[in-house]
């Protein structure tokens, strides 16, 4: 019984923390989704113990707590994967921005090439970004 109370309390604290962070704009709504989802699942499983037991049988576990760890691991892994994807995206954006800074600096140094034609610059090098 005690472990259930602790789990519920922990999940509720995480939920409140997430909402508070979103409120203070320290966390974008987009990133909060996975956290809120996981905290919700933990609350549900802690309250509804028989569901946890059923799930444990379903995945072939022996102890219900291992089921919680199992889902916890899935959560951590998906969050890390999500971050890797975001970092790749950010890296690509930074590369593009740094190149643009270099190009702009060079253009501004050379007024003769910075004519109407090149400032219109049709951006033909970036068809889809």
């Amino acid at each position: 019984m005690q472990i259930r109370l602790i789990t519920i309390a922990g999940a509720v604290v995480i939920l409140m923390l997430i909402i508070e962070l979103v409120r203070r704009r320290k966390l974008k709504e987009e990133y909060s989704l996975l956290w809120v989802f996981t905290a919700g699942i933990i609350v549900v499983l802690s309250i509804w113990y028989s569901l946890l037991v059923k799930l444990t049988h379903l995945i072939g576990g022996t102890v219900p707590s291992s089921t919680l760890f199992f889902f916890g691991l899935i959560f951590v892994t998906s969050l890390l994967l999500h971050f890797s994807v975001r970092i790749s995206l950010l890296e690509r954006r930074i590369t593009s921005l740094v190149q643009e800074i270099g190009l702009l600096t060079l253009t501004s140094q050379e007024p003769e090439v910075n004519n109407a034609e090149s400032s219109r610059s049709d951006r033909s090098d970036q068809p889809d970004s």
Partner: protein
Amino acid sequence: MNRHIIVIPAFNEGAHVGSVVAGVREVLPEADILVVDDGSSDETSKEAAQAGARVLCLPVNLGYGAALQAGYKWAVRQRYMLLGQLDADGQHSPEHLPRMFETLDREEADVVIGSRFLDGDGHYRPSVARKVGIALFSRVATMVMRQRITDPTSGLQVMRMPVARFFCTEVYPSDYPDADILILLHRSGFRIHEVAVQMSQSSGKSMHRGHHSLYYMYKMWLSILVTLLRRRHIFEARS
């Protein structure tokens, strides 16, 4: 406006970039030269400018591929017709460039690559690991493209503008373009041609400096695999 631009990506090559630029000016006096200073901490920019090149300074170090790509973007926006590229470390001798531009015309190719191994005289001796990598991925590229490729990592190239424009998109890697990019070019309908060139051993630093061989192997296999898995997409902007 000049038709030719020579792009030279440089990272901390203050000792060599000046002579490379001078060498290019000697063989191609008509061409504009753009040195892309990839966030160097030495005198690269100053040396390049003193030798008569235009310098594109990147405020932070992005890597070989991304520095080259910045040069492609400049060339495309400035409406050049033909682009040549060589490394700043003195490994590539500029005197091959005029012949490569001629080949581009004569063979009606879109890209001409200077190959260290095509003439087979063994003048260029890379380390064993590099040799294995180059041999392996040349084979893979040759097989996939049904066209003999001997030196997919060569940074000595000349190309027509549609290729440079293609390289300005996100297809281009920020680290090192290799066999994967050649396969992608081939699948996108570009014509590739190799010519034999002589290269010196450079300053001891390979183009793949900081590249761990294992990571390199892994990256190339993965990159070639996903290139082949992607839908074949003929680049529209050709001609």
